[in-house]
Structures are given as C-alpha cells and as structure tokens.
C-alpha cells in the first residue's frame, strides 16, 4: 500500500479547497464588531429545516420584517439593523459551527433570538466567554437565565417552562380539585421542567398511571397509542400536554380514534400552536371544522396576546408590518410571527436605549439595569435584573373558542406572575403601556 502519492494529491487538493473557501476576509477592524456607522448586525440560529423546524422557522423572517420596518423609519440611532439567520437543523453539533460562522464571518454584534435548548447549550459558554451579548434566547430552559454569574450575557426571550407550568398547575389544581389530573410529556428538558413546575404547584402524578411520557421525536414514527391508552385506562379526566405541537396533534387524533374524551385538555403554550395543529390534521383529511372542534375548549397559556386577537393594538400594528415587510417563504400570521416581531421590538428598544455609542458591554449592562422597563406586547413585565435574566414573568390563561382564538378564561384576562424558583403564583397588576402610533418603541 503506497500512501505517498494519494497524500501528495490530498495536499494539493485540500490547498485548492482551502483557497476556494477563503476569499477576502480582510477584517476592517472596527472598534466594535458588528457595528458600523450605518449598520448593526445581529445573528440568530434556528432550525429552518428538519423535524424541529415547523413554526420556529418563521421567527427569523418575522423578526427581520420588523427590523426592516425600523430601518425604513431611519433605523436605530441612524444605524439599520441586519439580521443574519443560520440553519442549525436543531443539532447541537451543527450549532457550534454556525455560531463560529456568525461570530467570525458575519462578524455579528450580538446573538438575538436563537432557538432551542440543546442547541443553545452547545454554544452558550463560548458566547459568554467571548463577551458577546446573547439576547432574547428562544428557550424556556431556566438554566440559561437564573444564574447571571454563569452566563452574564444571556437574556431570555420566552417565559420559562417552569413559570408557565406553575401558573397552569395552580389554576388546574383549584378548578379541577375533584378530577383526576394526568400528564403527557416528552422526556426532555421541556417536559421535565413542565412536570417540575406542575408538581411545585401541588399537582401529583403517578408514573405509569396518570403520567405518560414519550421520547421526544418518536410521536411521528412510533405514535402515542400506548401513552393515550394508558391515560384512558387509568381514568384520567384532565390531560395536561407538555410536548411540541405536532405531538399534540397526534395525541388528539389518537384520543379521538380510541374514543377517549377527557373532560379537559390543557396544553403548554409550546405545543398549542393552532396553525401547526390544523395543518397536520388537515393533511390527514380532517376538515378544518372538525380539527377546530377537537382543539376548542383546550386550556393554554400565553405571555402575549392571542395572534387572532384582532382588537389588540400590538397585534394590529405587527400584522400590518408583517403584510408589508415579511419576505419569508411563509408569512401566514400566527403566534410564531407575532412572537418573532415582539422580540425584535424588544431588541430594538434595547439598542435604542443603549444609545449611539454602542458597545457589547453597554448593551448587556443596559439590559440588566433597564431591561425590565422595556414595554412590549406582553401582559407582564420583563424579569431582567442583576439576579436573574428571565424574560416574561407572567402568563394569562385562556381557552380556545370554536374559531381557535385563545380567549381569556371566564371572559376576563387575569395575568399571573411567578418565578422559576419557589416563589408564589400571584395576580399581576401590571398595566401594559400602549404602542406608539408609528409602532416604534419609545425609550426614555
């Protein structure tokens, strides 16, 4: 076996590949990476393809639409905002590479709205050690936010799963005290955090009886027949679902097939995306009216208004911007689009507030000191402080009506607030400030 010649060829070939790959990255050594006199570059990592992409793959386009709107109005302190999104296919091994690409090639100023817990875990340490701001992370995993000494630059962009579960759990425990309450959850950080939150609220589940779990991702191949059968066999009357939306759809369809009709379904907001729900069941041949009837009556929670709440002033303003500025492949108005625009709105406020003299350290410091004051579409204040970087601290509970609009429970929106620790669930008296007529944040 003579190895020399292949090796020499390899040397030549790889040098060739190398010269192909690298072309003119002449670093125009700006004092602050990603900030020039005319532009601020933000980077986002999210699954644009693959099993985890549905729904989430609209967030970058929605956020970009809002930034483009801001740019059309003159930008932030004279600078326009550019959002570079990278597809990490929801695989942590890929995220590490796309993050390096954003940092080194796209020379981003900050990470913004990165989607996913496991994927973000693979880069969060690196991002923080480089001192890059990591704002509005789209993960409800509280581990990113509750210890700012560990990850000083990371700030949440979702309410944590624990907060939502504590609020949902408290309500269900009181309202359905005489009913048997069970749970279907995916056995990952999301499902487990939800379970912990519900348990903290005083609900009790029994494994293999009222608690059914599945390995996340397997609902699409193995199905949820045994899990739903188990809940039915144990006479569970109120079913809580902590799973992604496509699994929620499979769960409902399986229950219908098995003639299992719990008194109440309650779905954690991650899995309650009615668009995904109806799309999946629609392709299954379920008429829209039937799938709507299945989901109607389901309890869910939200930190922002329902996407279908046509009277809400934030919804009105964002919806118009979506129509005019969204250039994504699918710009159908829904929760993910509304949420994407809202975090872009918050990011814009923070950049405005940090001021003309923008640096990474200044943005982080501004987020920590003043972030809690930034108003947005949410009905609860942001939780940012020196002791925690959790975002939305409150949720309101609602019920889907026949047109799949999430309507506040009992006709009146009550916002509950709590923390990811052992804090009590209390009713919030926060009044959301109005959106300005030009839909731009006004920062003092």
């Amino acid at each position, binding site marked *: 076996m003579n190895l020399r010649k292949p090796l020499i060829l390899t040397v030549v070939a790889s040098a060739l590949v190398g010269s192909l790959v690298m072309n003119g990255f002449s670093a125009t050594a700006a004092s602050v990476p990603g900030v020039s006199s005319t532009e601020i570059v933000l980077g986002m990592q999210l699954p644009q393809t693959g099993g985890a992409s549905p729904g989430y793959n609209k967030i970058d386009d929605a956020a970009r639409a809002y930034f483009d709107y801001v740019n059309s109005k003159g930008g932030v302190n004279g600078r326009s905002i550019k959002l570079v999104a990278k597809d990490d296919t929801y695989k942590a091994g890929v995220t590490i590479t796309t993050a390096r690409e954003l940092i080194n090639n796209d020379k981003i100023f900050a990470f913004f709205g990165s989607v996913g817990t496991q994927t973000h875990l693979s880069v969060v340490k690196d991002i923080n050690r480089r001192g890059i701001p990591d704002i509005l992370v789209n993960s409800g995993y509280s581990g990113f936010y509750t210890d700012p000494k560990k990850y000083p630059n990371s700030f949440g962009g979702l309410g944590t799963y624990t907060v939502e579960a504590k609020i949902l759990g408290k309500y269900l425990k009181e309202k359905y005290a005489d009913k048997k309450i069970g749970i279907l959850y995916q056995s990952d950080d999301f499902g487990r955090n939800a379970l912990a939150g519900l348990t903290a609220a005083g609900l009790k589940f029994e494994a293999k009886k009222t608690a059914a779990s599945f390995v996340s991702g397997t609902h699409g*191949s193995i199905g949820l027949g045994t899990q739903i059968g188990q809940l039915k066999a144990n006479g569970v009357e109120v079913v809580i679902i902590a799973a992604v939306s496509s699994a929620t759809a499979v769960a409902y369809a399986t229950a219908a097939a098995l003639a299992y009709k719990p008194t109440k379904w309650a779905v954690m907001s991650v899995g309650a995306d009615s668009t995904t729900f109806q799309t999946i069941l629609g*392709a299954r041949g379920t008429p829209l009216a039937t799938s709507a009837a299945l989901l109607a009556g389901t309890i869910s929670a939200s930190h922002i208004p329902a996407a279908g709440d046509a009277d809400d002033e934030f919804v009105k303003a964002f919806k118009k911007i979506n129509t005019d500025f969204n250039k994504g492949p699918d710009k159908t108005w829904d929760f993910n689009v509304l949420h994407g625009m809202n975090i872009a709105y918050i990011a814009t406020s923070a950049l405005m507030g940090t001021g003309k003299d923008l640096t990474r350290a200044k943005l982080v410091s501004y987020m920590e000191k003043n972030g809690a004051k930034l108003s947005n579409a949410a009905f609860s204040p942001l939780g940012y402080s020196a002791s925690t970087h959790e975002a939305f601290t409150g949720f309101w509970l609602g019920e889907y009506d026949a047109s799949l609009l999430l309507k506040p429970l009992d006709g009146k929106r009550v916002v509950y607030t709590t923390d990811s620790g052992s804090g009590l669930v209390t009713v919030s008296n926060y009044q959301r400030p109005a959106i300005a007529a030009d839909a731009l944040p006004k920062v003092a």
Partner: protein
Amino acid sequence: MDSFLTAFFSGTSQGAIYALVSLGLVLVWRGAGVVNFAQMGQAMFTTYIASQLIQNDYSYWSAFVIALVSGAILGAIVDLGLMRPLTSRKNSQLLNSQSMRTTIPVIASLGILGVLKAVAGILWAGEERGFPSPIAANALTIGDTTLAITGFDLFVIGVVFVTLVLTTIFFTRTGMGLAMRASALNPEVTRLSGIRVGSVRTLSWAISGTASSLAGLLVTPKTNLSPNTLDLLLIVGFTAAVVGGLNSLAGSVLGGFIVGYVIAFVNVYSAPENVFLAILVFLLLALFIRPQGILGSKEVRRV
C-alpha cells in the same frame, strides 16, 4: 388488566406495520441479497407523492394506487440505476473482496436515503403533515367497553396477511418466484441454468418497493409524515426481520408482531425511554440465540 390490554392492542396494531416494513426488507434480501437501508426513504417519498395528489383533489384510492406503482418504479430504478451497475463490476478490485461485496450495497442504499430525504425536503419542506386513512379510525366496541384498537388497525392487519399470502404464493408457486429464490441463493448457477438473473432481481426490488410504499401509506395515518419520521421504522423493521428470519416471509411477519409487542409492553410496563435499549438488547439476543431467525433456515444465512 387494562394496562395489559392497552399494551396488547397497541402491540398488535403497531406490529402489523412493523411486519410490513420487515416484509419489504426480506423481499429484497431474498431476491437480491441486499438489506435495503433506503427502504423507508422510498416509503416516505411515495407517501409524499400520495399526499400531494390528495391535496390536488385526487381521490384517496387513486392516490393510493399511484403511490404503490411509484413505489415499484422507484424500487426498479434503484436496482437498474445503482445496484446492478455496482454488482456487475466484477473486475473491480474492491468488489473482489468478500466483505466489500456485502458492504458496498449497504453504503449505496444509504446514499439513496440521503438523496431521497433531501429531494423530499426541497419539494415538500421539512414540515410534519398528517396523512389520511382509507377507513375511519374509530375504536371498536364490545358491548359497553371500548377496545384500544380501531377498524383501521384491523384493516392494516388484514393487508399484512393478504400481502404475506400473495408473496408466498408468488415465491413458491410461480416460475418467476422460484427463479427469484434461486437467483438470490446462487446467482452463478441460476445464470447457467438460463434464467435471466438481472430481471428477476429488478422484479424483487419492485415488489419490495411496493410493499414499503404500502407500509408508508398505512403507518402515517397514525403518526405524521416528514422526511425523517420513518427512519426509526427501518430500525424496528430490521430487528423484526432478523428476529423472524431474514430469508423467511412468514418469519418476517411474525417478527414484526413480536417486536410490536416488545415495544408496547416495554412502553407500558417499563418506560418509553427504555424502548431503544430494549430493541438493541432484543436484537442482540436474537442474533446470539437464534441467528437464523425463528423461521429462517440455517444454510442460506450469510452472517
């Protein structure tokens, strides 16, 4: 008792699907001596074709038939375009090696899988979608008790047995079928006896393509369709085929149901997190205790 029934019915209905996957694997193994790792990729692709047709207002059954036919065509293309040129390279130094003759087709089928997934992603995006079932999926009732099994599940079980009977008759009663068995066992001798080994092999790829397409059409009504969701079924189907016997049609169906029960009972009595480990352990046990499979015959096993 309720848990037991839940596991039993769930195992039966899932087992029928696994049996179909496993049957598809055995068909190609018997006909061409290849384990086709692209099989569920082909199933996924043809199910998408059916889904697309249904969205374009074709009736379910016409989409169903077109999907089965495209499954056969896809299978034949894989053989004619890839497997045949591969095995005909007798002068290749690499393929002269015993182990490489079985390894290279496996790698080739993985290439097919990658390409099919990427093309499906481009054509239909990666989003999960549902797929209709031909008959209403409503639970059966006996008196007042609702059973954890639906009319659709019974339909699937029926389809599995009809497929098993048809393929068995084909292999044991028709000249073509006998030729297929012979060609897989000993291509050289078969060729010398005047049988056109090539077309026999292509036919077995086509039949297997149809069977896997059928599996795709029948599993997705209970789960979701996406470029990746059927991957896991290949693993399960492979385990079923090994358990039942890679060269036995009836064995593959039996294996499918056995693995269906293993998964369902582990799910109910242990934990879903243990399912993959259980499959691995079960597969290893099967390989060591009865490597030729329950109904497989020893002499043709090429392990």
